[in-house]
């Protein structure tokens, strides 16, 4: 079975401040805990990729070592 296609960036942030142009960044989302983070190339933060979910993981130990998709955590609840 083919994995769902990875959809790329999960969100967008914009920071308006008085000293210069607005800062715009994309966010990505962990497929296990739903956490969003800013994409900052070269930040040194270690993230990961779940080959089972075919999506990025945030780097937290529980998300890096266990594959529990968020959809599975809320199965049986109100629909998305």
């Amino acid at each position: 079975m083919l994995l769902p296609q990875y959809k790329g960036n999960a969100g967008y942030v914009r920071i308006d401040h008085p000293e210069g142009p607005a800062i715009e960044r994309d966010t990505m989302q962990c497929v296990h805990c739903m956490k969003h983070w800013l994409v900052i190339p070269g930040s040194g933060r270690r993230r990961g990729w779940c080959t089972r979910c075919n999506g990025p993981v945030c780097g937290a130990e529980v998300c890096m070592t266990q594959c529990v998709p968020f959809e599975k955590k809320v199965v049986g609840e109100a629909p998305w």
Partner: protein
Amino acid sequence: MASFYVAHRTPAGTNLTIIVAQSSATGVGKFHQMIIGSDATPADVATRFDLIRSTVAPAGGTALTAKNSDPQLVGATSLTLTGGTMTEPTYEATFLLEVALNQRATFTWIANPGRELRTTVGTANGIGLRSIASGGTPNINATLAWDE
């Protein structure tokens, strides 16, 4: 599907909730937008904000009223919204979104469709916007938007 907004303002501080939205027994929220700014006199004050899941509802505080994005829709939100000084909810240890922000700046986060932050059912469960640490106590203005 209904879409709602809520706004509130409160001074920054250490582990202080600005807005917390608790699910109901059957209803959940899918948060897709957050705006943080300050209407205080401009100053260089660094504050860290977290958007974080709660597992125990707060006590006290100010009940907030959500506004429907479409005034022709009469349905009310199923979420319980609280702001201001309260007995803090119990939050998870890890956050969903973290923002470190100078008071002079305004921050906007928008989730792409399908990538919203969803609460889980149950009145104890929710998502809160919290000031984790701050170099001062400037007034913080926050807006959250979600779909149900």
